[in-house]
């Protein structure tokens, strides 16, 4: 029986260690970007200059009349012609043309598509590593769910972010088990856990009362 308990302990400790190390860069990414999102006065190095070019393209007919993912798929056809990749944020009609912001980590691109004369103007701006972290923190996010994940790397990132969260929950659960094993730390740990619960409940109560 003791052998089984010992094995459970060793496996739990090892999984806690290795999963923790594996997701630690993601946890750092979410934590550092949280500080930037919470303090907008922190400078991020400033925006890069906007590079712009116009290209002739073949625009799929009826693009402006489509909706949702069908429209995004057609916009992607235009993007492939000009070598632009990324997550289409949304598509907005504007004076007979379309404005399409495209995002990926550390880059913002805006497409101005003109179906009347089969041209597209591309504005591209590098936003830097800190902005990339904030973008990833918020990606894919709750907005425009019907078109979100239209870039393969957004879908992979969603999977990675989910995996980070599930493993974080696993690590916190195994952390509690590993703490309970340490008999000498039980009392003080319980006091700290209680203080955390009271702080959490107190803050949420103040915010919601």
């Amino acid at each position, binding site marked *: 029986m003791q052998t089984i308990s010992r094995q459970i302990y060793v496996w739990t400790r090892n999984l806690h260690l290795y999963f923790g190390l594996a997701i*630690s860069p993601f946890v750092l990414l979410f934590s550092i970007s949280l500080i930037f999102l919470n303090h907008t006065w922190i400078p991020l190095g400033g925006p890069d200059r906007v590079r712009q070019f116009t290209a002739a393209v073949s625009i799929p007919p009826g693009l402006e009349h489509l909706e949702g993912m069908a429209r995004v798929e057609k916009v992607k056809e235009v993007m492939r012609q000009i070598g632009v990749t990324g997550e289409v944020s949304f598509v907005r009609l504007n004076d007979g043309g379309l404005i399409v912001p495209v995002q990926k980590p550390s880059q913002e691109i805006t497409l101005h598509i003109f179906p009347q004369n089969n041209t597209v103007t591309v504005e591209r701006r590098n936003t830097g590593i800190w902005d990339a972290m904030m973008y990833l923190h918020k990606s894919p996010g709750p907005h425009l769910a019907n078109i979100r994940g239209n870039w393969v790397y957004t879908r992979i990132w969603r999977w990675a972010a989910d995996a980070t969260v599930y493993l974080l929950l696993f690590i916190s659960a195994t952390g509690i088990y590993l703490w309970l094993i340490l008999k000498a730390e039980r009392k003080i740990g319980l006091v700290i856990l209680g*203080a955390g619960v009271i702080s959490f409940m107190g803050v949420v109560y103040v915010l*919601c009362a």
Partner: protein
Amino acid sequence: MSSVPEIGGQALHPPKPVELQWQSFAHAIDLWNGKLHYYLGLYLLLFIWLFAFSGLMLNHHWTFDDFWSKRKVSTTERAVHPPAHGSDLEKAKDLMRQLHIAGELELGEAPPAAGRLDFQVTTPRLMYALHADLVKGVVTVQRTEVNVWGIIHILHTYSGVRRDNPHMQRTWTGIRIWSFCMDAIALGLIFVVLSSYVMWWGLKQHRFWGLVALFGGYLACGFFVVGLARLYP
């Protein structure tokens, strides 16, 4: 005969006082690094669970947490004493006092029409849209209340500031406290991660596979943060 003990013919010299001090200091650092690792983890446990779970909710559109369709909305008209002086922000705060409404105040981005003032007040549970007619002294208050899923959802993003609007400032003590909590969670997690590196490095038999796990993590994360921009310039 020498008083220094010997092993295998080599004399064992007792550690010098400086070495002893250093060993004792390193031991204390190791000890407290480990203690703080799980003390912080325990203290932040519920906060971490909240942000982890709400992060999943934001990235997925599960049906059980669809709080918006279940919100309760009511609209009332309330008589007020129109504030005579002050900025729009001061007038809005005055009206909130008269109406006994507390929360984070957000003015509309466009300047209000003459004699009117429109603004919003939010808490994680309640959202008020207020439309004030300062000439007649009447405020239309639309009150929206969300359920517990809505509160969890909103707490994840409830910072009171936005990078795309540098003029936004926190006006309510409640949101300042929550903003402080967010910072504490971020800094606490950074400490927990860094302290775990120190603890892992002390376990010599786990160094190699730990390095593999850590390298894999940084490779995967780095691919998204910097790699994608290089791969698809």
